[in-house]
């Protein structure tokens, strides 16, 4: 239909260090100092070790369901690397690497998956939010956190992580729209790992890219190779600068892959091809960066051995801390509900009963009338 064109848009895709080791010297120039590169590599390796141990803890009955992060280490790490310490990191549940980089002690993640809320009791000053279980809901909080920073003129930003599947939820749309319309300093970081449990990305979005979801809001949006730490760092730098300087949000689609099952409760062989998995094994972000470091002579076998030892020890330590944490008396759960505990809840807490006869004798008085007709008090 011939008519007037009123809008045009396009999506760019960024790759710097590809799976064959080719490095785009122009895009990658002066992006990451060598020292940092080594540290980033080390963090990914430690995180990978953590993942393996966490998996084993689940398999041996020492931990509940656990979502492996394997294969996705570069995304959250690249983002956390670029962000300032006081920027909000609002994650989903596959961003261990970025959280560890930020400084979250590893045992927190273990505690979370061990069914212990103390895994979410974020240490003061860390500027992260707890792992988000309900898909797609946390981006709105990130928008609110970014809004608060803008309101206070703090020059802090928020960066929120979520999967391809999450982009199908209504809350994703609302968060993107609020951010774009209210000019919030935020980065929406989508980890497109090809699958939402058993559902492939093309069933979440039939468009050629997820990145173009941002066009709906007139938002800057871009795609990158999520297994390429350079590409991630590059797009994150641009996005965080845009947020910090102009309060404009950015939507990033990072192409990555989970090399494990969805969680330990899942069996990916039921729905995905071995060949696809094999192909992505070749694109492993850790191997890729490791090879590059070796090429630059920044890494070698002995450093690797030392790193593996260190990883082993640090992870073992975290496991120990998580497993040896003191039991929480259930009463603390009641106390954690409100700043001030309501009376009926206090009665439940102090008797560990809900039935009124079971609550008799609570506190000073006796609340439920007895047949003897004693004078009672209800608190």
């Amino acid at each position, binding site marked *: 239909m011939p008519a007037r064109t009123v809008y045009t848009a396009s999506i760019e895709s960024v790759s710097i260090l590809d799976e064959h080791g080719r490095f785009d010297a122009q895009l990658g120039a002066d992006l990451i100092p060598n020292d940092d590169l080594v540290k980033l590599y080390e963090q990914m390796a430690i995180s990978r070790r953590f993942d393996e141990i966490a998996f084993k803890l689940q398999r041996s009955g020492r931990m509940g369901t656990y979502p492996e992060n394997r294969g996705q280490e570069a995304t959250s790490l690249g983002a956390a690397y670029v962000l300032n310490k006081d920027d909000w990191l609002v994650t989903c549940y596959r961003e261990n690497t970025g959280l560890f980089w930020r400084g979250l002690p590893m045992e927190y993640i273990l505690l979370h998956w061990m069914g212990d809320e103390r895994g979410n009791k974020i240490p003061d000053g860390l500027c992260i*939010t*707890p792992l988000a279980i*309900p898909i797609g809901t946390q981006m709105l909080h990130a928008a*609110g956190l970014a*809004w608060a920073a803008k309101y206070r003129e703090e020059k802090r930003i928020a960066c929120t992580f979520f999967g391809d599947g999450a982009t199908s939820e209504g809350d994703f749309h*609302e968060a993107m729209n*609020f951010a774009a319309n209210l000019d919030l300093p935020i980065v929406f970081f989508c980890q497109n790992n090809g699958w939402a449990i058993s559902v492939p990305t093309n069933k979440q979005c039939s468009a050629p890219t997820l990145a173009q979801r941002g066009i709906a809001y007139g938002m800057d949006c871009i795609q990158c190779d999520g297994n390429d730490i350079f590409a991630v760092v590059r797009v994150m730098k641009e996005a965080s600068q845009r947020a910090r300087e102009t309060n404009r949000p950015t939507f990033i689609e990072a192409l990555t892959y989970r090399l494990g099952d969805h969680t330990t409760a899942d069996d990916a062989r039921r729905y995905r091809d071995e060949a696809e998995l094999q192909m992505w094994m070749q694109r492993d972000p850790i191997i890729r960066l490791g090879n590059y470091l070796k090429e630059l002579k920044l890494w070698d076998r002995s450093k690797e051995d030392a790193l593996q030892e260190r990883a082993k020890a640090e992870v073992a330590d975290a496991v120990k801390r998580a497993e040896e944490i003191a039991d929480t008396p259930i009463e603390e759960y009641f106390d954690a509900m*409100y700043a001030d505990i309501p009376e*009926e809840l206090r009665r439940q807490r102090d008797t560990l009963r809900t039935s009124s006869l079971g609550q008799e004798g609570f506190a000073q008085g006796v609340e439920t*009338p007895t047949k003897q007709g004693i004078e009672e008090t209800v608190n």
Partner: protein
Amino acid sequence: MANLTLVQAINLALIQEMERDDRIIILGEDIGVNGGVFRVTEGLHKRFGEKRVVDTPLAESGILGTAIGLAMAGLRPIPEIQFEGFLAPAYDQICTHAARMRSRTRGALTVPLTVRVPIGGGIHAPELHSDSPEAVYAHQPGIKVVMPSSPYDAKGLLISAIRDPDPVIFFEPKRLYRAFREEVPEDEYTIPLGKARVVAEGDEVTVISWGAPVVQCMTAIEASGKSIELIDLRTIYPIDTQTIVQSVRKTGRAVIVHEAPKNCGLGAEIASRIMEHCFLYLEAPIQRVTGFDMTMPYYKKELEYLPEAERIGKALAEVAAY
């Protein structure tokens, strides 16, 4: 002291709290230049500017979700949802996040927000503008739920709600928005959450209600000629069991009145608490005069659905005669 409507009392509370605490941001649909569809936020946009009084996109989950983020950052957001029927799209953010953030993080992150929501029927409004979902939110641990029935209470309770460190749903009975005026002190004052008000004392029957039906109860009680104790709950959660129980131990008879459907309404919880704590004092089965277990009818029939004075009066007579 000024003679104010409920709308004006809330407006005054908002202004005073905003003057006092610049962590407060008001957000919602049409609350800015337009002053809200009920004019509750009238003048705030002009007074506090568009940084603190923000017209959001039309998206209730977005309003609550971003308000949660604002609160997590230490601000004191006061989102408005235009009508209780449109709180439903925000149900997930309220119950999944606002209610759980403190317990989930053992207090590391909290959500001190107050969401204001007009509630209830009786104003000839369209569909989904006349419901009463308070019991749904009372069932969700982690939030507090408030519903005033007078201008005086509205101001004092709203200030308490705003200052409360936990999320509060503040339901405003729209039928009472402009139904009557009352002396409301200019000075700030708070009414504690979780404390009911004994509106009238009596010793034959205890009537428990909240929000708009409190007014219907007063009419019914007057007409009954009996000595009836009327308790206005004021806070839906936590429930002030003590005040209720003390009264029913005196009267031995109770009638609970609410607009929501009977089945699984708040009346069931209150009746159960009375039964649990006043078992040996009860002289008649506790009565529930409520909306019927059906969809709130469109407005032609709303008064036949709501617990109006006449229907309340019948129950009073029956329970007293039992």
